[in-house]
């Protein structure tokens, strides 16, 4: 039963890959309709690929767009007789690692790349879920006001303006509270 399902999935993947390869060949020849269809079909696949690897759900679309741009820039490098999925996922992985490196430079080592995780034999999902648990329990220890601001800003994805309106405070006050909350979070996480 299971092997039948696995075979079906593999067949369906092969079919998709072959269809995308045909669409890409047309796109390389300047067929914009085929190109639109290809990118629209790839979008949900890439979104699910990125969602499994990026912890901040608000950045998923940004990364998907970066990968789409990467595929666009590199479309001349697709060699028709090679498997399309291997080509696409190689670019997706490259863009994802690039995104993670930028993030690490910007925020410090919050997120580790697949390579680093592999070296330490930790799966990405295990690492992310343990990191999420740590951060969530640290947020729970914050004073109420700071907790509310961080939750709304980082977990629920509200803008500073919306939070200021919700809490009946100025935007700068929200920013100051958020800044203090980050400092407090850092201390809590360092201790733990």
């Amino acid at each position, binding site marked *: 039963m299971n092997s039948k399902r696995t075979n079906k999935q593999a067949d369906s993947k092969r079919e998709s890959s072959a269809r995308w390869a045909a669409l890409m060949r047309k796109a390389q020849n300047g067929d914009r309709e085929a190109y639109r269809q290809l990118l629209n079909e790839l979008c949900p696949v890439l979104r699910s690929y990125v969602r499994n690897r990026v912890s901040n759900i608000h950045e998923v679309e940004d990364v*998907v767009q970066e990968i789409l741009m990467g595929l*666009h820039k590199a479309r*001349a*490098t*697709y*060699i028709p007789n090679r498997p399309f999925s291997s*080509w696409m996922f*190689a670019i997706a992985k490259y863009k994802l690692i690039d995104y993670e490196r930028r993030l690490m430079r910007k925020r410090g080592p919050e997120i580790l790349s697949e390579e680093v995780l592999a070296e330490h034999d930790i799966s990405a999902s295990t690492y992310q879920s343990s990191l999420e648990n740590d951060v969530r329990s640290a947020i729970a220890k914050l004073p109420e006001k700071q907790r509310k601001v961080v939750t709304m800003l980082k977990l629920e994805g509200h803008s500073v303006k919306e939070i200021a309106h919700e809490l009946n405070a100025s935007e700068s006050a929200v920013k100051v509270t958020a800044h203090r909350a980050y400092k407090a979070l850092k201390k809590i996480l360092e201790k733990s």
Partner: protein
Amino acid sequence: MTETSEFIERIVKDGEAVKPVAPPLTRFLFWILSALVLIICGILIIGPRTDLSLIINSKRFILETFLLAVLVVLSGATALSLSIPDESYGRLRIVLPTITLAGWLTIITYHLGCNCYVAGYSALNPGPGLRCTAGILMIGIIPGIILFFLIKRAAPVNLRLVGFFSFLSLLAVGALALQFICDNPNPAHVLVWHVLPVVTIAILGSLAGAKLFKW
């Protein structure tokens, strides 16, 4: 319409026809032929070693030259194949040139341990030594530039590896030509002024690759 749908529309507008990059074999043959021409030109311009007719039948010379020729072929092919995004390629393309490089290093080290040559100041003299290193770089630079443009035209996804193997291949081209130019067979000289620069610059090339080949 969502943000990503609008983004796709923008990309599609920009989606004019593109000429696919040439197949890896075609690009490789173009590169290897240009490298071969430059090796011959380099030997003719600088002048072949004086003892070439004596040494050409020696086992060590044949083995070293063979390994360097294999290194040129394998590292160039690896650099070019890595410049096309593809997850399905195996690790063999990375392992084989690395083994060949290790083989070259082993042969030189073996002869160094043989005590067949006097390892002294003359072998390590920076005058002729630096000339050899400069020769490797001078002969390798044009194949290096050709390789650089062939890789830039593609889309490498493992920048450090592409950097390492592209630098290794251009230096191996230079080192192969030096086999027919440098008349100092002392393994200490070969190790310090031929092998070490190749390995060191290839490692530095892996660092430079992250910047040079970023797209």
